[in-house]
C-alpha cells in the first residue's frame, strides 16, 4: 500500500513532508484537503490529526501528524533510499539541535512574516506594518547567528544537507518572494546556503506540483 500525504500544496508544513518524500524518491499519494471548505476540521480528517491541521500521513497502518515527526520517520525508516537526510553517529546530535532551532527560532518569526506579507493579502486582509518590522528585526538576529554557524559548517547541521536545512525550505520559498529577501541576501554565507538548498531538484518537483493544483 502506497504512503499517503493528506494536505494542501499551499501549506508550508505539508510542503516539508512532500520535499522529504521527493528527496528520497519515494512513491506516495497526495490527498488534497479542502481547507477553504473546512475539511481539516471535519470528523474524517480529525481521525488523522486531532489538532485539525495539515499534513497528516499514512504508511500502511501507521498514521502520523506533525510535519517534523513525519520527515524524521521518513528519513530513518527509508534511510537507504535517495538523499540521506540524517547523519550517522556523533554529528546527528548537532543536526537535531539545528532542527530544533528551525522549529523554535526560525519558524515562529518566518510564519508571522509570511502570514502578514503573503497570506493576509490573499485573504483580502491588511498587512500590519508594525508586526512586519518587529519580526524582520527578530529574523535579522536569527540570521546573524546562522551566518556565524554557516562560517563553521557547510550546512546547518553538519557538512551535508539534512532535515535541519530541509525544514526551512517551505517558508524560505515564500519569504524569498518578498522584500524580506534582502535580509538573506545581506549575509554572504546565509545567501549562498539559501541559493544552494533552493536549487535542489526535490524542491522544484514540489513547486511544480503546487503550480499544477
Amino acid at each position, binding site marked *: 500500500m502506497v504512503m499517503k500525504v493528506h494536505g494542501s500544496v499551499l501549506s508550508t508544513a505539508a510542503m516539508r513532508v512532500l520535499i522529504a518524500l521527493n528527496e528520497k524518491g519515494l512513491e506516495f499519494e497526495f490527498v488534497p484537503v479542502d481547507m477553504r471548505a473546512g475539511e481539516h476540521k471535519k470528523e474524517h480528517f480529525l481521525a488523522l490529526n486531532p489538532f485539525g491541521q495539515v499534513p497528516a500521513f499514512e504508511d500502511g497502518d501507521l498514521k502520523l501528524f506533525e*510535519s*517534523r*515527526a513525519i520527515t524524521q*520517520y521518513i528519513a530513518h525508516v527509508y534511510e537507504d533510499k535517495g538523499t540521506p537526510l540524517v547523519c550517522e553517529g556523533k554529528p546527528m546530535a548537532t543536526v*537535531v*539541535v539545528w532542527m530544533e532551532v528551525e*522549529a523554535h527560532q526560525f519558524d515562529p518569526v518566518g510564519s508571522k512574516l509570511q502570514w502578514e506579507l503573503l497570506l493576509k493579502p490573499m485573504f483580502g486582509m491588511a498587512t500590519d506594518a508594525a508586526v512586519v518590522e518587529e519580526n524582520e528585526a527578530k529574523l535579522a538576529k536569527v540570521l546573524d547567528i546562522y551566518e556565524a554557524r554557516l562560517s563553521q559548517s557547510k550546512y546547518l547541521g553538519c557538512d551535508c544537507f539534512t532535515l535541519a536545512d530541509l525544514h526551512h525550505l517551505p517558508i524560505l520559498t515564500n519569504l524569498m518572494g518578498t522584500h524580506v529577501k534582502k535580509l538573506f541576501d545581506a549575509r554572504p554565507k546565509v545567501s549562498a546556503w539559501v541559493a544552494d538548498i533552493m536549487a535542489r531538484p526535490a524542491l522544484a518537483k514540489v513547486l511544480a506540483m503546487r503550480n499544477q493544483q
Partner: protein
Amino acid sequence: MAAPVKVYGPTLSTAVSRVLACLLEKDVEFQLVPVNMATGEHKKPEYLKIQPFGQVPAFQDESIAIFESRAICRYICEKHADKGNKNLYSTNPLVKASIEQWLEAEGQTYNPPSSALVFQLAFAPRMNIKQDEESIKLNDQKLSKVLDIYDQRLESSRFLAGDEFTLADLSHLPNTHYLVTVGNRGEAFSSRKNVDRWWNEISSRDSWKKVVEMQKSK
C-alpha cells in the same frame, strides 16, 4: 567512568528543568553549572560560545556541546539508551514515530500558549513587568482547546504516545508545573478527567519530584 555531564542554567528555567528531568529518568550523573541571568551572563560572549541564541540550557559531555532542551533530551536518551528508563525514547521505529509526533505536538502546539502563560503568570510579577491581560486571555483560550484534544487522546491511551511514559510526556512537565502551582491554572487540568489522571501520574514520578525539590532549594 565518564565525568558527570554539564548542564548550564538555573533550575527555575522550564527548559533547563526539562533536561534535568530527562537526566534523572536516565540515571545519568550531571553537574549543574549556574548561569546568572539577572546579571545578563547568558548574553555575554563566553556563554554565547556554547549557546549562540543566549538562552538556557546549554549542555556538554566528554564528546559534544549542544543546546535546545528537546535536542539535549533526545541526545541523552540515544547516548544512554541502556541506562535508566529505557522506554523514554524507544529505539523501535514505530514507537519512536509516535513519541516524535507528541514531542512535536508539545513543542509546536502546547508550548506556545503554556509558556506565554507561564511568563505572564509566574515570571512577569517577579520581574516587576506588568501582566498583559490580552495575552493571558488569548492563551488561556488556546490552552483550553489543546487540553480538550489531549483529554480525547488520553481517553484511549495511558500516556500521550502510548502505554509508556516517554519523552513526549516528560516535555510537558516544566510548563504545566508552573501553570498548576504559581499560575493558578490547576482547574484547567483537574476539570478534564483524562488530563487530570495523566498529569497526576506524570508529575508524581520520582524524577520530577526531585526537579521540583531542586527548584525550591535555589
